[in-house]
């Protein structure tokens, strides 16, 4: 048991580090970030530039085969690259869904011509992809989708609405799951396509979140015509295709952003309670200890996963632990941090509020993390069923044709 790189890993890390030193500025402190200082539009320009540079040096998607612009590297090399890049002040985040989920699906189910056309520009950051899966009445239950695609000569016509689409407003392309046959049970009548987000009839509207920001969109489809060549996988096999995409999503789920033990620890050193510094209050100390232990538990669980990766194993649904623990931990830390500020805790003013409103802001976006990408309740089901092997919930709708299901499904 050790935390050291193997000699090969160390060599790769050194190579990465020297490349980064030559091409990007180091962060002054660990929490330094581009966000907040720049508008989304500015960040997008910078991110595309940085992505192009990475792609050129073959650091963009390390595990991809060389013929697609990757370097045929190991997942561990990707982890090492990510660890090192985290020390540098660079813009990113716009390409994760496209490169992590959409393009792998296209690589598996698209034609050779598709791969030739789309993989390169996506890798270089010239084109951004989004994933059009969720619908208003199909949250946890993705298979209950209503957006229709109907045959129209050589092509298809799409009508319906998607929701919770990250980055649809700056994406060039999207992959979309549609219902092509409502007369068969609900998992069976689905088909996957890709499309240009500029296709006539596609309309993107941002969704404002509780915290006031808009990272997600609603996307409306009105008589959107696309050729059959944009189909991914066979007609009626969209569900199987989407499983490929979602499998990649689970790997991409990370920790929750936001204040953690360190920020709370600093806060308790700063604040005064009735009887002295907050950090000296034993009730505060016990809470701090609880948060620390949960955070370390997650960190070392991730190390165990990385060890599995490093040995070439595929991490399982255990990764759901990270999300189910970290989202509610964030909500708790945010709430507790505010509580320590007493009356001042409800002020969301960056200049007045200790820690510049970090805890207040987190309290407003934490609920989203408990929901997006699988609610706490769905994740507990996943752990119970896929990790522990307990039975699935009773399904009353499994073999019913889609158009005979209860409203809302």
């Amino acid at each position, binding site marked *: 048991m050790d935390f050291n790189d193997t000699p090969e890993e160390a060599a790769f890390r050194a190579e990465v580090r020297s490349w980064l030193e030559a091409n990007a500025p180091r962060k002054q402190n660990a929490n330094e970030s581009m966000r907040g200082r720049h508008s989304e539009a500015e960040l997008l320009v910078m991110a595309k530039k940085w992505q192009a540079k990475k792609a050129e040096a073959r650091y963009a998607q390390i595990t991809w085969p060389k013929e697609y612009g990757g370097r045929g590297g190991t997942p561990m090399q990707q982890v090492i690259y990510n660890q090192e890049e985290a020390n540098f002040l660079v813009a990113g985040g716009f390409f994760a869904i496209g490169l992590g989920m959409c393009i792998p699906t296209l690589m598996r189910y698209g034609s050779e011509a598709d791969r030739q056309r789309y993989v390169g520009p996506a890798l270089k950051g010239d084109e951004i992809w989004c994933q059009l899966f969720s619908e208003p009445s199909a*949250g946890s239950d993705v298979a209950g989708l209503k957006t229709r695609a109907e045959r129209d000569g050589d092509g298809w016509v799409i009508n319906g609405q998607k929701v919770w689409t990250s980055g649809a407003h700056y994406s060039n392309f999207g992959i979309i799951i549609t219902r092509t046959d409502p007369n068969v049970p609900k998992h069976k009548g689905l088909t996957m396509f890709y499309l240009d987000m500029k296709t006539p009839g596609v309309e993107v509207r941002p969704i404002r979140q509780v915290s006031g920001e808009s990272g997600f969109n609603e996307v409306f489809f009105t008589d959107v015509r696309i050729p059959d060549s944009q189909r991914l996988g066979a007609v009626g096999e969209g569900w199987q295709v989407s499983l490929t995409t979602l499998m990649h999503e689970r790997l991409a789920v990370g920790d929750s952003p936001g204040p953690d033990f360190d920020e709370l620890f600093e806060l308790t050193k700063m604040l005064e309670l009735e009887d002295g510094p907050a950090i000296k209050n034993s009730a505060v100390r016990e809470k701090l200890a609880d948060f620390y232990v949960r955070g370390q538990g997650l960190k070392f669980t991730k190390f165990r996963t990385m060890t599995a990766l490093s040995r070439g194993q595929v991490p399982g649904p255990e990764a759901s632990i990270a999300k189910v623990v970290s989202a509610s931990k964030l909500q708790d830390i945010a709430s507790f941090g505010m509580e320590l500020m007493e009356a001042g805790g409800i002020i969301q003013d960056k200049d007045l509020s200790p820690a510049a409103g970090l805890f207040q802001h987190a309290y407003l976006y934490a609920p989203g993390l408990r929901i997006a990408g699988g609610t706490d309740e769905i994740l507990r089901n996943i752990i119970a069923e896929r990790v522990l092997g307990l039975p699935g919930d009773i399904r009353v709708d499994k073999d019913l044709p889609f158009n005979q299901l209860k409203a809302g499904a």
Partner: protein
Amino acid sequence: MNFDFSDDQKMMRDSARKFLGDRSSLKVVRQALESDATYDKALWAGIAEMGWLGTAVPEEFGGVGLGHLELCMIAEEMGRALAPVPFASSVYLATEALLMAGSDAQKKAWLPKLVTGAIGTMAVSEGTGSPKISNTHVRVTNGTLNGVKWPVADGADCDLLIVLARGGDDRLSLYLVDARGKGVESEILKTMDPTRSAAKLKFTDAPAELLGVAGQGLELVQAINDHAAVLLAFEQVGGAQASLEMAKEFAMQRVTFGRLIASYQAIKHKLADMYVATELARSNAYYGAWALSTGSSELPVAAAAARISAIDAFHLSSKENLQTHGGMGFTWAGDCHLFYRRAKWLAHVIGTNRFWKERLISQLERKNAA
């Protein structure tokens, strides 16, 4: 044993519910959220007209001359409706402060105004921390006040301020300040609940008049807060109850995997937990109401228990209501966050849960030693 409100009191609650259902629907609350207005002036005027501002104020000062039990019933409905008005600041704090510590002249000067719609509030905090001598810098010298207070709930809209400050003798006392008079500047602050407002107040030689006994400032603040804790607990119980009902309503129409989500134990047990927390809070609030209305020596303990329980219940119910709503829950357009935000506002306004837990145990130690 008659541990319940009377039929008359409940009728008052029902009529408050009806009035607020019309005049403070979630649409109205959302307007307060979206607009720059710090409170809903039309609603406030309507509430003044209903006589609610003077519920527990004797008739000689223009009030209705009912008691705190009636006020509790109204408070529950204000909480349920998330009414975007300075009711808590003006009625539970400023009015209670005057009733408790005001001279006859002070009561005569201010209560009739407050009862008819003037807004009062208390200015106690100076940033973070609960008020004590070491973090109170605002000072009164020769009858004028100088310094900065924040956050002051409804501080930008008020007519009357009751300010905790250092007197010439360096002890803490309460002072009345005419907020429309000279030497008072306000700056609106962004808060966790934009349907309620808070301000930073800067005093520059503002005329100030002693309220209550000099040097008793902290004790008076706590005594006023004991009253407010009970009344706020009813608001919180109302909010928790509304959150529970909203979650239930959504769960009874949302279908996933072919079933109402209300049929899954994860949701059923979540709602059962919200119900249990809300009922425990309600029972503790009832006891607080009894202690408040009878002037019992149990009030400090009862108020603390009511507040702790109510903070917990609204916290749980507001966040799990949002969670029950899934994706819709965390959109700006959904109404869940109105409750989620208000729960936090109410949890902070007169001392947080941890502050009141410490107070509860101190009071129990005192009782126990006696």
